[in-house]
């Protein structure tokens, strides 16, 4: 659906060169909710703006639905943009227009008839649940409502791709959840591919199925969300995951006991349905003392971790084999000896 090959973008000034996007390869499948996470200045906005050519790459290829968009003429580019929706952190609604008129703007741009515009805008208002606000001006809306209008507006021309630049960063947690649910609904019901950027891992966890992690303009890791959450490889990724998932303080909080060791079990999806701990106790004679445990949903499935304390003399070989079979990752955190 979207394929980036060796894409580079540098901002040149008289004095400085900023490599905002460096050698990025990226692949987004149809109907993905693809997250791009990274800290401030990592190049996320630049990357997403390359996807509708608000920025032009210095080199590399950007294929969207089989078309190389770096080669489009001005007219072709306008046409391509009409089929790509975008929403923004600060909503970017026109204050001079009512909610309904804001949603009609992209339809005016494509040249739909007035009746068609109104009909479509009303449908969209219904989709985002704002039918009663049609004739209200944006200044009278809450942040969440503004973003709903932004979403409706972005969907007006029935795009195949929706780009979201920090769409929830200006919203409180509850409103964020509402907007994320709406995005999920759009993805499912309208079969729209979503690319979203964020600096919050919990946004990724809640709605994305795939994720890329950016740092200093580079994509340092990309893949399945569960995979990345469970087995982050790069240090930066680990940081992001840790911030979101585990309070990595057990080691210090916990009084050291030389006869014990701490192990961490990370399980995904299927393994959460097995009475894992019971099996370990009954079949392997493990005698665990639970220190910390957390299970949560990642994209409609469960992942979690369990930190237990066991006798430091306990031989883990058999347990390891069993856990491997169950797709559970085992990690010895601190061997107290």
């Amino acid at each position, binding site marked *: 659906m979207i394929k980036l090959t060796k894409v580079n973008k540098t901002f040149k000034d008289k004095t400085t060169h900023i490599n905002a996007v460096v050698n990025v390869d990226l692949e987004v499948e149809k109907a993905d909710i693809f997250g791009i996470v990274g800290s401030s200045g990592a190049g996320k906005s630049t990357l997403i703006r390359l996807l509708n050519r608000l920025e032009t790459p210095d080199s590399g290829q950007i294929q969207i639905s089989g078309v190389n968009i770096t080669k489009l003429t001005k007219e072709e580019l*306008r*046409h391509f943009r*009409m089929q790509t929706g975008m929403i*923004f952190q600060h909503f970017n609604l026109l204050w*001079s227009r009512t909610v309904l008129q804001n949603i009609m703007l*992209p339809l005016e*741009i494509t040249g739909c008839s007035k009746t068609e515009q109104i009909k479509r805008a009303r449908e969209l208002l219904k989709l985002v649940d704002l039918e009663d606000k049609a004739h209200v*001006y944006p200044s009278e809306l809450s942040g969440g409502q503004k973003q709903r209008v932004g979403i409706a507006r972005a969907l007006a021309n029935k795009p195949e791709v929706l780009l979201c630049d920090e769409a929830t960063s200006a919203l409180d947690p509850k409103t964020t959840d509402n907007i994320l649910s709406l995005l999920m609904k759009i993805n499912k019901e309208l079969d729209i591919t979503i690319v979203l950027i964020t600096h919050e891992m919990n946004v990724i966890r809640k709605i994305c199925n795939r994720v890329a992690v950016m740092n200093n303009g580079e994509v340092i890791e990309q893949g399945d969300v569960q995979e990345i959450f469970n087995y982050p490889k790069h240090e930066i990724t680990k940081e992001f995951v840790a911030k979101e998932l585990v309070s990595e303080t057990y080691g210090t909080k916990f009084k050291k006991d030389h006869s014990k060791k701490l192990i961490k079990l990370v399980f995904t999806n299927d393994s959460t349905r097995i009475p894992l701990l019971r099996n370990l106790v009954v079949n392997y004679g493990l005698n665990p003392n639970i220190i910390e445990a957390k299970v949560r949903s990642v994209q409609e499935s469960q992942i979690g971790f369990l930190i237990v304390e066991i006798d430091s003399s306990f031989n883990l070989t058999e347990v390891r084999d069993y856990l491997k079979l169950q797709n559970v990752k085992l990690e010895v955190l601190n061997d107290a000896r």
Partner: protein
Amino acid sequence: MMLDNIVWDRMLNSVNETLYMSFFSVIVIFILGLTVGLSLYLTDEDRLIENKGIYRLLSITVDLLRSIPFIILLILLVPFTKLIMGTMLGKTAALPALIIGGTPFYARMVEISLREVDKGTIEASQSMGASLIQIIRKVLIKESLPGIISGITVTAISIVSYSAMAGVIGAGGLGNYAYLYGFQRNNQQVVVVSTVFILLIVLVIQKVGNYYTQKIDHRK
């Protein structure tokens, strides 16, 4: 009677001339100023059709014209006015000077209002595939309309007073009337009544301008 020294026919005719001069030049200033202001904005650094050369040229011309005192501009333009208007007298004679004096003033105000348009909204419209013309019409002008209207209100008020000044060198209107019949013939009543009419015109322009500026401003 208190106002027995006033020839009302002449007075009302002067009011008419002032209204004509002001109205006509404000219309032209509005169109020219909008065009120049928009060009200034669009060709400025980091804007939609950045062009240093054109920006500098426009900018210097505008500032130069703006710094010439109006009374000097009137005198400077005498030959030009004679050439294109065929006369130095009456209600049309002041138009070139009013337009040339008012346009740069208004163009800068337009430019300032345009700069206040949120860059994000322009970007949003670009992301929808809007053309330059569509961005100008649907976003830039609409989003800066309160500034554009309050700007033309301020300009119109200046034009009324400029037109009175033009009267002194022979163009028609209340200024001319007050000067010829009030000042030169020492008829204080004419001066006072002319002033009252000018004040009324200014007041009406201000009220109408404020009304529309507020009516279309939904920024809060």
